[in-house]
């Protein structure tokens, strides 16, 4: 059986399979080091948790050709300015609650999750909160009693009561505010943020 051409021989493709896999794995690992460095909180793409002490805008950037977050003037969350440690603790409580309440099986976060309820990537900046002065309070009230404060926009889909406490609700709001500051390469496309008074 020497009539098999070299390019279709078993041994050639065995070597190809091994080499291609190894090279790709090495490239992925190298890229992973760089990516993880860039997405660690406190970097340019993913701001430090204390960003919750500041205003966040989402604006068109000429150079990049899409909208990017801009960190603005100080704007304390719930009237408190947090140091890095307490900001991280608050966002951590929010993230833990988001996981423990299984939000991701109705909503998407950064576009990943389920499609039964709206995306939360820019929830903090959604014009549905009408005015920035009432936003924090409205968000907390909604989370505490989503049944009574249902916002179904005519679909009849209501968020269930998940037994969220006030502290957890504040944590979720902090988490959402922080998430809205992540540089998502322009996602979601063409987002129209809430009007905010720009003190810049």
């Amino acid at each position, binding site marked *: 059986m020497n009539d098999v051409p070299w390019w*279709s*021989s*078993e041994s050639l*493709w*065995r070597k*190809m*399979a091994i080499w*291609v*896999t190894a090279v*790709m794995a090495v490239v*992925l690992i190298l890229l992973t080091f760089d*990516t*993880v460095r*860039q*997405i*660690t909180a406190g970097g340019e*793409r*993913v701001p430090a*948790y204390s960003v919750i002490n500041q205003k966040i805008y989402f604006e068109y950037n000429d150079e990049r050709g899409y909208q990017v977050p801009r960190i603005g003037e100080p704007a304390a969350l719930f009237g408190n300015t947090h140091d890095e440690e307490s900001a*991280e603790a608050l*966002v*951590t*409580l*929010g*993230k*833990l609650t988001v*996981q*423990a309440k*299984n939000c*991701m*099986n*109705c909503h998407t*976060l*950064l*576009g*990943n999750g*389920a*499609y*039964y309820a709206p*995306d939360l990537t820019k929830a903090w900046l*959604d*014009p*549905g909160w009408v005015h920035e002065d009432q936003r924090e309070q409205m968000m907390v009230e909604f989370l505490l009693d989503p049944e009574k404060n249902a916002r179904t*926009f*005519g*679909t*009849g889909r209501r968020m*269930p009561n*998940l*037994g*969220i*406490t006030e502290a957890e609700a504040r944590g979720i709001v902090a*988490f959402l505010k922080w998430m809205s500051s*992540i540089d*998502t*390469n322009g996602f*979601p*496309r063409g*987002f*129209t943020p809430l009007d905010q008074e720009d003190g810049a």
Partner: protein
Amino acid sequence: MNSATTNVAAAGPLTAGQRVAMHYFVAAMVLFFAQILFGMISGMQYLMPDLFYNVLDFNVTRMVHINAMVVWLLFGFMGSVYWLVEDEAGTDLVSSKLAIINFWILTTAVALVVVVYLFVQVGPGELKSIWLINEGREYIEAPRWADIGIVFCVLVFFYNIAATFMKGRWSGISGVLVLDLVALAGLYLAGMYFTPNISVDQHWWWWVIHLWVEATWEVLVGCIMAWGLIKTLGASRKVVTTWLYIEVALMFGSGILGLGHHYFWIGTPEYWLTIGGFFSALEPIPLVAMVVHAVYDSGRHGFKSSNHPALAWLIAHAFGNFFGAGVWGFMHTLPQINLYTHGTQWTSSHGHLAFFGAYATIIIAMIYIALQRVRGNVWMSAGLADNGWKWKWSLGLLNGGVLGMTMALLVAGYDQSFIERALEGSTWSGYFLAQQSKWFIQGMHWRMVFGAMMSMGIVLLFWDMLTISRTETRPVQELSPAPG
């Protein structure tokens, strides 16, 4: 070498490995049923939002729907590997007792997790909820204690399989299979820690999800396919093994960096737009190779197979994998379109066809191969009792149902992308406006119609599995090597 396994084709009691496999197959089918049941409830909740409101909400029904799927596919894979390991290694399973104990531990853990999902559902925002109730991360929601249990059980499984090959003989198929299982088990560890940083969270989460379903699972089914074609068609091992190596090279060559198509919008650097777009656009190529390989081999053998239902499901796998994972994936994989389709019903359209086409189909094929042996190595080729209407109709209903559902969700997804993203600026009011558009709602209705079709298909499939060839007396069709 034990005589029971030197010729597994001989009728008689099942071998130890085959008995273990049957446990996994039965559990897989029960979970398949649960997947469809909870999928139907989730689908209904789009049309009747008050259905089970505050009792069994969408986040729970949908979680059970997708978790049942992940677990039944894993059970199906483990069953398939237990089924083929003795034949491929030419020796007995190293420890069938360990395999059975392992099966019951895993099954009990799965049952416990589901009970907690259904009756506890959510917990307070503390680490203990993540350890005990649910991790709240799509597809890998299983609480941490179960994660550790899964890793333990997979290691036991791995030991049993690798040790069996070491005791018996190695082949190209088993070599690829064992290395792939190492990667598959290791990757799960990437999904087992908590971080408040959602970008870091999703970055590692995709290591599990993507490198499972678009890399290691694909190679695993490549191995099963290779073995399946040898068994049902009598395909040449040399040809099949060469194809398997080609598929591994193409699959890992495109799929490992194809991971980048999940790194477009989660905070990860901009270079992923180029890398992810380029390599994921190549991902359909190995799937084309798999179709060519399956159809070419079948044609070469004149479609004369020892097991018609299994071969039909293997071919359904080749095409389902190509269309579901390949074509449907490619359609929205470039960042220029994904910016609009990411996180819409578009993704669920792709998910339904890809998971069913790539994975459900091949496990069903393996179960038919197993059933032939269970029924005593009888005839399962052309001219079955009642003309084999049950397997043919269930094949048609399940594949037709999933295709119809895929098209319905695709229409809804196009509509949603266009209205919510392109026109309405991706706000919440834009989201809800899209959800109320006529085409979107029509899509949701048609999805239910085709879901009902699938439900009929699964009932018929179970009926067929319980009855096929029970009264058959003809021996299995002899296979001949390919002509020329």
